[in-house]
C-alpha cells in the first residue's frame, strides 16, 4: 500500500522535477539574462522577499482581489437569488445579464479607466465584474435546479416560504454556487494582474511591467510563479470549502 502511494506521488512529482532540472540546465547553457537558471530565480525570489518588495506588491494585489471578489460574489449571490425565486425579477434581468455576461472582463478596462479614472476603485470594479456574473448565473441555475417536489414536501411539513428558502433551496443550490465561486477564484487573480499591468502602478502586475522595462526576466519569472501559486491556492481553498459544505451529502 505504502509502495503504491509512493509510486503515485513519484508519478506526480517526476515531471515537475524533470522540468525544474531542465530549466536549470538550459539556463546555464543559455548564459543570457533573458533565460536565467532556476537557482538565480530562487535567489531573486529570496531577495525580493527579504527587501519587502514582493510582499508589498502581493499585499496590494491581494487587498484588491479580496475586496472586489467579496463584493462581486455577494452582489452575484443576491441578484442570482432574487432571479431564482422571483419570476418577474428573472424575466426583467435575464436579457441584461445575457447581454453583459459574454463581455470579457478586460474589455471593460478602457471604459472604466474613463469613468472611474486610475485609482484603487478601478481594479476592484474589474474584479467585481469578473466575480459578479458567474456567481449570479450559477446561483440562478442552482436555485432553478431544486426540484419543485422538495419544496412541496417541505410545505406539507409545515415550513414557511422563508424557512424553505434558507433550509432547502439555498443549501441545495450551494454546489452550483460553489462552482461559480471556485471558477472565478483563479480568474480574479488573472484579472487584477492585467489591470495592474495596464493601469495601476502598484501590485504584482505593476512589478511585472517594471521588470519588463528593466529587462529583469528573473523578476518576471518570480512574479509568474507567485501568480500561479495564488490562483492555485484560491481555487484549492474554494474546492476545500465546497467539499466541507457539500461533500458529505453529494
Amino acid at each position, binding site marked *: 500500500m505504502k509502495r503504491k502511494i509512493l509510486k503515485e506521488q513519484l508519478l506526480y512529482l517526476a515531471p515537475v522535477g524533470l522540468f525544474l532540472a531542465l530549466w536549470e540546465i538550459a539556463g546555464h547553457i543559455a548564459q543570457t539574462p533573458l533565460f536565467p537558471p532556476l537557482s538565480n530565480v530562487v535567489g531573486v525570489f529570496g531577495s525580493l522577499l527579504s527587501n519587502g518588495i514582493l510582499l508589498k506588491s502581493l499585499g496590494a494585489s491581494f487587498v484588491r482581489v479580496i475586496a472586489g471578489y467579496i463584493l462581486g460574489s455577494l452582489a452575484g449571490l443576491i441578484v442570482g437569488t432574487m432571479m431564482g425565486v422571483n419570476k418577474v425579477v428573472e424575466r426583467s434581468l435575464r436579457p441584461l445579464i445575457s447581454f453583459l455576461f459574454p463581455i470579457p472582463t478586460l474589455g471593460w478596462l478602457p471604459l472604466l479607466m474613463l469613468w472611474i479614472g486610475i485609482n484603487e476603485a478601478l481594479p476592484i470594479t474589474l474584479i467585481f465584474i469578473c466575480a459578479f456574473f458567474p456567481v449570479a448565473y450559477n446561483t440562478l441555475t442552482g436555485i432553478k435546479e431544486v426540484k419543485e417536489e422538495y419544496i*412541496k414536501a*417541505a410545505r406539507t*411539513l*409545515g*415550513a414557511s416560504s422563508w*424557512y424553505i428558502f434558507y433550509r432547502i433551496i439555498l443549501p*441545495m443550490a450551494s454546489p452550483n454556487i460553489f462552482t461559480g465561486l471556485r471558477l472565478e477564484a483563479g480568474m480574479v487573480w488573472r484579472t487584477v494582474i492585467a489591470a495592474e499591468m495596464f493601469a495601476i502602478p502598484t501590485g504584482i502586475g505593476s512589478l511585472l511591467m517594471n521588470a519588463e522595462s528593466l529587462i529583469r526576466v528573473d523578476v518576471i519569472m518570480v512574479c509568474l510563479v507567485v501568480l500561479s501559486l495564488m490562483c492555485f491556492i484560491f481555487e484549492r481553498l474554494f474546492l476545500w470549502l465546497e467539499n466541507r459544505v457539500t461533500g*458529505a451529502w453529494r
Partner: protein
Amino acid sequence: MSFISLRNISTPYCLKNVNLDVEAGVLMAVLGFTGAGKSTLLNVIAGLIEYGGDVYFDKYNMNHIPTEKRNVGYLLQDIYLFPHFNVFENVAFGLRAGGCPADGIKDKVEKILELLHIAHLKKRFPKDLSGGEKQRVGLARSIIMEPKILLLDEPLSSLDPATAKNIRKELKILQKSLDLTMLYVTHDFAEARELADRIVVLAEGQIKQQGSFQDVFYQPVEEIQEFVVAAHSN
C-alpha cells in the same frame, strides 16, 4: 362520520366535479390508470394546487388554509428526502420548522425512528440508503408531525415485492395504532386489497366507483373492467 369531504372539486385539465367522503381512521385506496387524476386529488387535499370546490377536514372548510397549516402528512412517489440532511435531520425537519424545542425534537425523532426500525440509520445521508430505507425515513418524516391525515402517492412502486410487502404490513399497523385517515394512491389491485378499508376508482378525472374491495373487484363499473380483468389474471 366523514373526516375528509370533497365537494365539487375541479382542477384545470384534470379533476371534474369530484365528490368524496373519507371516514376518520379509514385507509382508502385511490385506484386508477396513469393520468386519471389520482395524484392531483392528493395535491388538492394537501392544498398544493389551485382548485375549485370545497375541501373540508372534520367539517372545517380548508380552502383558505395554506398547505403548511393543514397538518397533512404527504409521502410523495419518489420520497424526496432532503439530500443535504442526514436521516435524523430529515425526520426532524417539520419539528424544527414549527419551532419545537431541541430536547423535544431529539426525543420525538428517536422514538419514531425506533418505531420504524431505522434508528441505526440516523446519521446516514439519503444517498447511502436503500429504496426500502428511504421509504421508512419518508414515512417517519411524514408522521412525526402527528397528522390526522396521511396521503401516500404510490410510495412503494419502486421497491422489490418482498420489501414492499413488509412495509405495507407495517403501514397498516401504523395506520391503526395512530388512528390515521389515509388516502393511498396505487394502480395495483393486489396492493389495494391488502391495505385498503375502502377503494375509490378514478378515471378521466372523475370518480367512477367507490366501495369495499369486494364491491369494486366483483362488480366493477364499465370504465374499470379492463383494470379488474388485468388484476384477475395476476
